[in-house]
């Protein structure tokens, strides 16, 4: 059994379902791997630690990866976990904001991830506004509470599978504006990154195969998978996670190891346009399809 | 004598006697007092002598209301009113506040009582410090004063209090013989007509300024009968009659 350390992007949540299903179903064991999963508190840390050689793999985000690659971090994507964006701009359905253009002059809360203001800027420009037409407030830990309690009129960085359900459970309907429908190129929300120098590590293809098996089992047996998931994480057994689970299912990458090169290049150009990166890094330097 | 240091109304202060009866007090299982009776005659100076550790300070504190006597102790003023607010107390340690200069230390009483400290009070405090020989060290902090100087500031502070009952615990112990004589006279003059209890280790001092002198001894402590020297204090230090009395006192002390 080879040991493999995976740093999650954040605390365990249904986005990580394929990993947990693979573990609970014994797919990792079958692949000769003993996988340890660790949750950090700051999503920015895991890629750094993988780049520094402290862990084998990290779950990160495609935009972050591209920014990190542009900063010269020796990271490379080896797989995809969630293959669509999850990020959205969310407002209350019964609030005054019916379209992106209605955000003019309003307060928008965000949690500093590095990307959110760029996303919002692109969406606003798509609607004929500028980023300076809204007031941005970093609300860090509490996107939904800030929105629900009327502290802000909209939040960016809310996940479509989570925050919308959260609002709903609290009895308020939310309205989501999807970035990919408002001028932002599509991207992979969750990717699996490894240290570039160690991309040839023979454990990695085995790991991806196990994740793929996990994903497929998950899609074939959603209810059994849920049971496996909450058995491993009993604290997640609640209404919100149940709903998030359901909403996340269709978004998992059906073929985790596959790389859509154009998608990455398109998004890299977007990042450069938004001045989040200085130069468009070479794709081969930060994303591979393992063989 | 400085006129300033004597408050104008002092002549009108009524003299009150103080009586303590059946006093009982225990420290750590040891009965310090048990059925102790003692009386301060109104308007007179009572001196208390006795071996170290016999309980003189404790008795003073008891009268000042600072010790917790046990029943059936009775502490009463002659006029039946409580003693609170009518006692000035000078402790065995100087207890000067280190952050205040000499003058401000002397003015502590009025300030604590929230009295308006006007020119009159300040002048009186100055006068008292001058009288104890510290007229040129008004601003000096305690740390800059010698032991005897600190004791003199504490004495000035006590005299500033202008109370009908004055309790003093070895007020001159750190002073040289000459300064001591001068300050004994000063105190005797300023405190004339008050009820004074003065603890001292110097028999001659007691004989010079006491109307009545008691010796405390034993465990539990007992207070012996009064010696009342002739004449009125302050008596001259070289009075031969005092020397005779001194021998008697020493005899009582050593018994």
């Amino acid at each position, binding site marked *: 059994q080879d040991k493999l350390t995976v740093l999650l992007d954040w605390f365990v949540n249904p986005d990580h379902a394929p990993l947990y299903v693979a573990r609970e179903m014994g797919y990792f064991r079958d692949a000769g791997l003993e996988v340890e999963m660790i949750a950090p508190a*700051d999503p*920015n840390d895991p890629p*750094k630690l993988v*780049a*520094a050689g402290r862990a084998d793999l990290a779950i990160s985000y495609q935009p*972050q990866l591209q*920014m*990190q690659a542009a*900063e*010269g*971090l020796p990271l490379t994507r080896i797989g995809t976990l969630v293959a669509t964006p999850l990020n959205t701009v969310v407002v209350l359905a019964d609030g005054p904001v019916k379209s992106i253009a209605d955000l003019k002059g309003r*307060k928008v*809360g965000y949690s*500093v*991830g*590095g*990307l959110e203001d760029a996303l919002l800027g692109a969406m606003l420009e798509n609607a004929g506004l500028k980023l300076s037409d809204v*007031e*941005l*407030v*970093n*609300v*860090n*830990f*509490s996107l939904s*509470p*800030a929105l629900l*309690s009327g*502290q802000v009129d909209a939040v960016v960085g809310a996940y479509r599978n989570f925050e919308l359900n959260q609002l709903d459970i609290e009895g308020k309907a939310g309205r989501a504006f999807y970035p990919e429908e408002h001028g932002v190129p599509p991207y992979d929300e969750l990717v699996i990154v490894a240290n570039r120098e160690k991309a040839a590590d023979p454990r990695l293809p085995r790991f991806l195969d196990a994740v793929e098996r996990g994903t497929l089992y998950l899609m074939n047996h959603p209810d059994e998978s849920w049971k496996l998931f909450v058995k491993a994480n009993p604290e997640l057994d609640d209404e919100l996670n149940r709903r998030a689970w359901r909403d996340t299912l269709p978004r998992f990458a059906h073929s985790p190891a596959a790389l859509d090169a154009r998608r990455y290049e398109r998004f890299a150009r977007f990042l450069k346009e938004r001045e*989040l990166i200085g130069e468009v890094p070479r794709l081969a330097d930060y994303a591979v399809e393992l063989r | 004598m400085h006129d300033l240091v004597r408050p104008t109304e002092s002549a009108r202060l009524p003299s009150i006697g103080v009586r303590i009866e059946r006093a009982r007090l225990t420290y750590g299982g040891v009965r310090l007092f048990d059925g102790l009776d003692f009386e301060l005659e109104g308007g007179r100076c009572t001196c208390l002598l006795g071996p170290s550790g016999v309980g003189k300070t404790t008795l003073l*504190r008891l009268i*000042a*209301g*600072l010790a917790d006597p046990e029943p059936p102790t009775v502490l009463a003023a002659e006029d039946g009113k409580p003693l*609170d*607010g009518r*006692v*000035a*107390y000078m*402790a065995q*340690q100087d*207890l000067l*506040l*280190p*952050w205040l200069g000499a003058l401000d230390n002397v003015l*502590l*009483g009025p*300030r*604590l*009582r*929230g009295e308006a400290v006007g020119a009159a009070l300040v002048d009186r405090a100055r006068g008292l410090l001058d009288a104890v020989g510290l007229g040129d060290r008004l601003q000096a*902090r305690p*740390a800059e004063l010698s032991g005897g100087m600190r004791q003199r500031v504490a004495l000035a502070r006590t005299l500033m*209090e202008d109370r009908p009952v004055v309790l003093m615990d070895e007020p001159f112990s750190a002073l040289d013989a000459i300064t001591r004589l001068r300050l004994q006279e000063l105190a005797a003059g300023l405190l004339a007509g008050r009820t004074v209890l003065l603890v001292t280790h110097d028999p001659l001092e007691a004989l010079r300024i006491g109307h009545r002198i008691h010796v405390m001894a034993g465990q539990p402590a007992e207070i012996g009968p009064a010696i009342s020297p002739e004449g009125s204090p302050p008596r001259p230090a070289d009075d031969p009659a005092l020397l005779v009395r001194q021998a008697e006192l020493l005899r009582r002390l050593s018994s």
Partner: protein
Amino acid sequence: MMRAVRPMVRPLVTAAVLIAAWQALVWATGVPRFILPDPARVAMALWERAGLIGYHALFTIGEILGGLALGVVLGAATALTLSYFRPARRWLMPVLVFSQAIPVFALAPLLVLWLGYGMASKVAMATLIIYFPVTSAFFDGLRRTEPGWLDLARTMGGSRWSTLVRIRLPAALPAFASGLRVATAVAPIGAVVGEWVGASAGLGYLMLHANGRMQVDLMFAALLTLAAIAVALYFAVDALLRRALPWQPDNNPDEERD
């Protein structure tokens, strides 16, 4: 001459030594630059982004000073209340300790809900962090008054209030100063944590932002600025306190003459 120059030179030398140590650490451990950039890189960021950092620093300084003022006033008031009312002591003290154990992120939504995203919520956060050290140290000082002085005050007919003002308070000042020193040192982190709660300006915000963007140089440049503010503030307060308490013994073992 030499002596006059020294106080100016020392901080520079300290800084130089620290920077050298930092550089040595980077070399020795080979820690990657996206975790700990080397001094030159950070200096560059500091220089290039001076305007940006300065702008955010102003906010943070305001929050620190506000929090410090409020925390000290509230802390002192609480210490007085605690020492003056036995019930307060019995019932309030557990609540205070309790309050210390509440993490920011639990409090943040509440603070923001009540105080909004402006300066107020950050000052509140800094206040909260400063509050306890001041309260605790001052309270300890207030109850350690030399009993002889209290006896004296009693016979002199001092009211509780005047005994407090004239005796207990000055006697507790050294302890209060002790608490204030700790408070001053933690105040900057209080402000940064406050910005964590939700902000659109301030060094804490800038750091978070730079962290998210992988601009580690900028993050460390902001961090250096924050730390410099903290050190300057600490030594200013320390000098002030020493001047304010001239009667207090201040001796260090290495100044003992042999």
